[in-house]
């Protein structure tokens, strides 16, 4: 059975007749409820408009609250008023048509030419705004009607809803009369479809009253009723409307009537849109501006973006996340309390009725929470009715059983910037109260464990579950569609661990090997390389599938002449037939974003194998790092005295050089760089000198730190941190900057950064150079400059997130309707425009590409040639 589809929605303007026809009640009493708490007839809460209070029945359709969708009423306006949304269009129409005969101010031939142009564009599905704009421009300039010869006076439009013809003010009634005269035949030239609307309908004579279901009143704790903003506004309108009527009947002076008319206009305007420029917004008694019709639709929390494009859901959970390396990457640890609340439906059939019955009868964890009868009644399973329900159970019922191990769920972390932000995991019900996930899946979610929370959703239909398993499972997203490389892989300790394990030829006894591979299912243990001892490389090889690879590791120093296999740094990785022969495993091999080995396994053996590899790799790495022990402390940044002295000397020299530069500048001996002013040249030169000094100091420090330093290991293997971070800790922090320049603003207007310096001091220290190291500590002045630099970073991040968020929203909105068709073209679905004749010019899926290239030609040739020879 295919579900019914809505084929289209047409938009038109409501005519007064239509408003009256769809109305079930004429509303003219400003009161809502009577003293005894019942809604007043012909008031705004008229029972014919529908019901919201439980227990009562709708007087129109007889439905109870929840069943009755509500019905419109109407208010007969005592005097016509302008609809604000169309005020501008009315002004244009008044100027575009004759004030006497109402015809368009164009000769018929010209009008028809414009109309046919518009028709053509409409047919092509293109924008015809420009032509309509031109018609309005041309007609406005016409001084004499080409049809009746009447002279035209320009109508001045004053926001929001006033029109002046010279000094004479046009009442909405005058406006309406003029609009009535415009013939249907002229309307298409103004971009108006005469079948959809008549211009005089832009001047309201009847106002529809939305059903109470649209504006339910809430009952406060005190028992008082609090009405919706719309109801408040409608009360205002009715009150003024009635006053106007009474005054008119009583024959009140024109002046008073006009004032009332304007007041009515104000209330109707703010009822439609309370953010119109030019008039003060209508306010609640508390002073808060009312949320009227336009405000309900608009913006992020409005009807369109907040309620229609995004919806709230059931069967979801949210809690803090924490790591658990014992889980597979496609699992998620779910706290038992959550598992007991979330349910998966079982559609009872003759085949599974016994299974379903068992769940109903169970009293512990994976039990049934609810059963749903074919009539839609949802019954909670409790001790009292358990037996009875199990007895009554029949095919056609639905049993909602609690979440248990092996169920598929969607896991998500905001901001959901790419599709890897929502992936499907298998459930593992665990004690305690956090979601648990393997740290290797942190990169796609961009998650860490400093208090991050994540959401979990339980797919309810079989189709959804199947799609989740096949398309959304974590292993299906190991390769990123952004660049065709792995986005899931080892992080932090995984990399340090494997680095320690595989670097050089470390030897392990049998017991040690067993300890390391204990959690891993290794089928065959190779012969030990050296007399009863295995090397670290051999151990890593145990988890490798049969692959052959050669690449330079992250630790590669970029020597001038690459020695290849005989790399003195053990940085050239050689894997032959699933055996690591040479090289060290580091970020380049197994890291997220880089991991060449992971990439290779996905392509050669598929996602399932890759998942297993990542599971094993992380397990092994953690065992390895625990075996060796790994810690970083403050004494890791200790450098010997002679190094400190050298650094001190470099710093002094640099500061001296800066002084010399300043002297040269002051003496006028500084040669400006092409196209730069003298000041800019000086700044650039100083920055250069100080930057170089920092680098030199860093170099000295790193010489003394050595390759067995834990922090250095992390930096070079790519596990965490960089050498720059290290040198800042050990040697010198360097120049602090704001907007890429040295810090120059600061203390009052005296041209200095702080009162510690003389005005105009351009020296290194006075402009934010920090020569201390983090370890040694900063002087108060340095600390201040460091805070200045740090603040820029914070502001930067805050501004960036909002800007890039908006960019992303625009991109998604612009491109969401593009789809690859069966013929390989990319088309826009609403207009059918072909955007690309072949996706990406070659039709290759970026996710399946080899970092951009559709086919790895060199590899294939190598393979085929090797096959031929061997």
């Amino acid at each position, binding site marked *: 059975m295919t579900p019914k589809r809505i084929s289209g929605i047409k938009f038109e303007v409501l005519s007064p007749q239509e408003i009256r026809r769809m109305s079930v009640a004429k509303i003219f009493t400003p009161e809502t409820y009577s003293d005894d708490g019942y809604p007043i007839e012909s008031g705004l809460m008229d029972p014919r408009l529908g019901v919201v209070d439980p227990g009562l029945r709708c007087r129109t359709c007889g439905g109870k609250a929840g069943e009755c969708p509500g019905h419109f009423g109407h208010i007969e306006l005592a005097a016509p008023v302008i609809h604000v949304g169309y005020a501008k269009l009315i002004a244009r129409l008044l100027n575009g048509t004759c004030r006497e005969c109402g015809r368009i101010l164009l000769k018929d031939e010209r009008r028809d030419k414009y109309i046919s142009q518009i028709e053509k564009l409409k047919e092509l599905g293109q924008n015809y705004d420009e032509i309509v704009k031109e018609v309005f421009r041309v007609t406005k300039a016409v001084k004499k009607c080409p049809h009746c010869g009447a002279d035209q006076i320009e109508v001045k439009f004053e926001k929001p809803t006033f029109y002046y013809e010279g000094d004479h003010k046009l009442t909405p009634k005058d406006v309406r009369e003029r609009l009535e005269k415009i013939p249907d035949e002229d309307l298409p030239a103004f971009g108006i479809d005469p079948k959809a609307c008549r211009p005089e309908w832009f001047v309201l004579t009847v106002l529809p009253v939305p059903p109470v279901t649209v504006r339910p009143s809430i009952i406060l704790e005190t028992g008082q009723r609090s009405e919706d903003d719309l109801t408040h506004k409608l009360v205002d309108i009715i009150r003024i409307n009635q006053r106007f009527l009474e005054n008119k009947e009583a024959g009140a002076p024109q002046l008073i009537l006009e004032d009332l008319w304007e007041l009515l206009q104000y209330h109707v305007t703010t009822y439609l849109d309370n953010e119109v420029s030019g008039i003060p917004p209508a306010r609640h008694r508390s002073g808060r501006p009312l949320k009227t019709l336009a405000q309900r639709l*608009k913006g992020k929390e409005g009807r369109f973006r907040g309620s229609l494009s995004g919806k709230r859901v059931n069967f979801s959970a949210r809690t803090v996340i924490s790591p658990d390396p014992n889980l597979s990457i496609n699992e998620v640890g779910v706290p038992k309390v959550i598992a007991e609340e979330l349910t998966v439906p079982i559609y009872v059939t003759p085949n599974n009725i016994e299974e379903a019955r068992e769940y109903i009868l169970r009293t512990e964890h994976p039990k049934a929470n609810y059963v749903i009868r074919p009539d839609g009644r949802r019954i909670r399973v409790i001790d009292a009715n358990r037996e009875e329900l199990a007895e009554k159970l029949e095919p056609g019922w639905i049993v909602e059983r609690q979440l248990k191990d092996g169920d598929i769920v969607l896991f998500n972390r905001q901001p959901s910037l790419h599709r890897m932000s929502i992936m499907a995991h298998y459930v593992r019900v665990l004690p305690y109260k956090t979601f648990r996930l393997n740290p290797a899946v942190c990169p796609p979610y961009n998650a860490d464990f400093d208090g991050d929370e994540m959401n979990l959703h339980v797919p309810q239909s079989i189709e959804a579950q199947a799609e989740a398993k096949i398309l959304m499972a974590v292993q299906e997203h190991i390769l990123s569609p952004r660049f065709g490389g792995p986005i899931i892989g080892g992080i932090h300790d995984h990399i340090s661990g494997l680095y320690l394990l595989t670097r050089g030829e470390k030897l392990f006894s049998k017991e040690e090997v067993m300890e390391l591979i204990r959690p891993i299912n290794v089928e065959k243990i190779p012969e030990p390389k050296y007399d009863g001892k295995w090397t670290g490389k051999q151990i890593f090889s145990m988890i490798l599938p049969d692959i052959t690879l050669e690449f330079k590791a992250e630790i590669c120093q970029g020597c001038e002449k690459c020695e290849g296999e005989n790399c003195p740094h053990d940085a050239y990785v050689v894997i032959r037939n699933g055996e690591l022969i040479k090289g060290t495993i580091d970020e380049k091999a197994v890291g997220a974003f880089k991991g060449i080995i992971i990439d290779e396994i996905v392509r050669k053996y598929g996602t399932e194998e890759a998942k297993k590899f990542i599971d094993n790799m992380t397990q092994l790495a953690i065992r390895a790092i625990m075996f060796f022990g790994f810690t970083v402390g403050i004494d890791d940044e200790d450098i010997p005295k002679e190094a400190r002295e050298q650094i001190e000397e470099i710093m002094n020299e640099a500061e001296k050089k800066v002084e010399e530069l300043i002297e040269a500048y002051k003496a006028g001996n500084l040669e400006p760089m092409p*196209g730069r002013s003298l000041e800019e040249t000086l700044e650039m030169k100083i920055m250069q000198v100080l930057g170089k000094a920092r680098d030199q100091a860093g170099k000295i420090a790193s010489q003394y730190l050595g390759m067995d330093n834990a922090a250095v290991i992390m930096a070079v293997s790519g596990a965490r941190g960089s050498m720059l971070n290290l040198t800042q800790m050990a040697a010198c922090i360097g120049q602090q900057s704001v907007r890429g320049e040295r810090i120059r603003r600061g203390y009052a207007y005296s041209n200095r950064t702080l009162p510690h310096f003389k005005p105009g001091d351009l020296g290194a220290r006075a402009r934010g150079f920090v020569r201390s190291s983090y370890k040694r500590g900063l002087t108060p002045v340095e600390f201040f400059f460091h805070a200045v630099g740090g603040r820029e970073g914070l502001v930067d991040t805050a501004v960036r997130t909002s800007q890039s968020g908006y*960019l992303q929203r625009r991109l998604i909105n612009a491109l969401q309707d*593009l789809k690859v068709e069966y013929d390989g073209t990319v088309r826009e679905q609403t207009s059918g425009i072909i955007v*690309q004749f072949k996706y*990406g010019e070659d039709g290759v*899926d970026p996710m*399946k590409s080899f970092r951009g290239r559709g*086919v790895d030609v060199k590899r294939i040739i190598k393979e085929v*040639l090797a096959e031929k020879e061997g």
Partner: protein
Amino acid sequence: MYEEIFKDYPLPEELKKEIVEELERRKVDKKTAKKIIEKCYEVYMKNLMEPGEAAGIVAAQSIGEPGTQMTMRTFHYAGVAEINVTLGLPRLIEILDVRKNPSTPMMTIRLLPEYAKDREKAREVANRIEATTVNDVADIATDLRNMRIIVTPDPKALEKKDLKFADVLKKVEKSVKEEVFEEDGKIIIQIKEPSYKKLMDTFDKVRKLVIAGIKEIKRVIIRKEGDEYVLYTEGSNLKKVMKVKGVDFTRTITNNIYEIYEVLGIEAARNAVINEALATLEEQGLEVDVRHIMLVADAMTADGELKQIGRHGVAGEKQSILARAAFEMTVNNLLEASVRGEVDKLNGITENIIVGQPIKLGTGDVELVLKLGGSK
């Protein structure tokens, strides 16, 4: 020699070229070549995009997601240290917004062979391009008592710019509506009307008067790249620079995409969008597949007009009313649609989400039919 094998394996041209190159380099015999090509074709077919794939959304995410990792810092240098160029997120936004006046327009001008090798000749071209104002080559003073402006050209500066005294005089005469005459190597401008304001206005005008070069181009820097001299400019005017003698306009580019669109047309604009966006992302060290950027560029240029990503472009000209209303300017879009009697055909994504129907993408684009009796 491998051409005929490809008949059975229709691969894209680029790929074909790459394969042939590799085969020729290794001098592979025909039989093996066939095997290789067959294998390549097999891999290629396997790596094709699946029908129904939401290519647009993937592209948007692939460009939007790294946006969060980009720097905000506006100024930096790209290759040429002397010229500031907007980079990072602000530049990416600028490109996708199709700003008519980017914050840092810049050109890379390559020269014809006879000019490219010689520094002096390159300088000559640079002089023709770089805007030279009177202020650059002369001292300007005001003589309040006589209501005069005295321009004293500096012969050295003139020579450096390859200009003559007469050039300056002619330009000044042409643009100033006052009396201009020469007096012992000086240009005297006599203000007719005794008004201080007039004097100062003319003074400013003369100072900024461009006597040679192109107004928009504020600075030209000559750099040697490989064995040729290349000009980098601050400011851009593609149309005028292309006409300058000595400029090889086939290899001259600007970073102002709108200018490329106006001068060279839509296809050039598409390539410019791709190149600029890719360069911006690459400079930040972010890896994004070209295909995503191509798709964005194609969406922006598909109907022959360069449209921005956003309310005044691609997203704002959507056929669907609901999609437009859900993006920006909700109320106006609805009011306008009702006047025009527009119909939303509910073909797109947002519309169907709004009315609660399955969308026609991916698994929503296909239907399943159950074969009764199972498969045999």
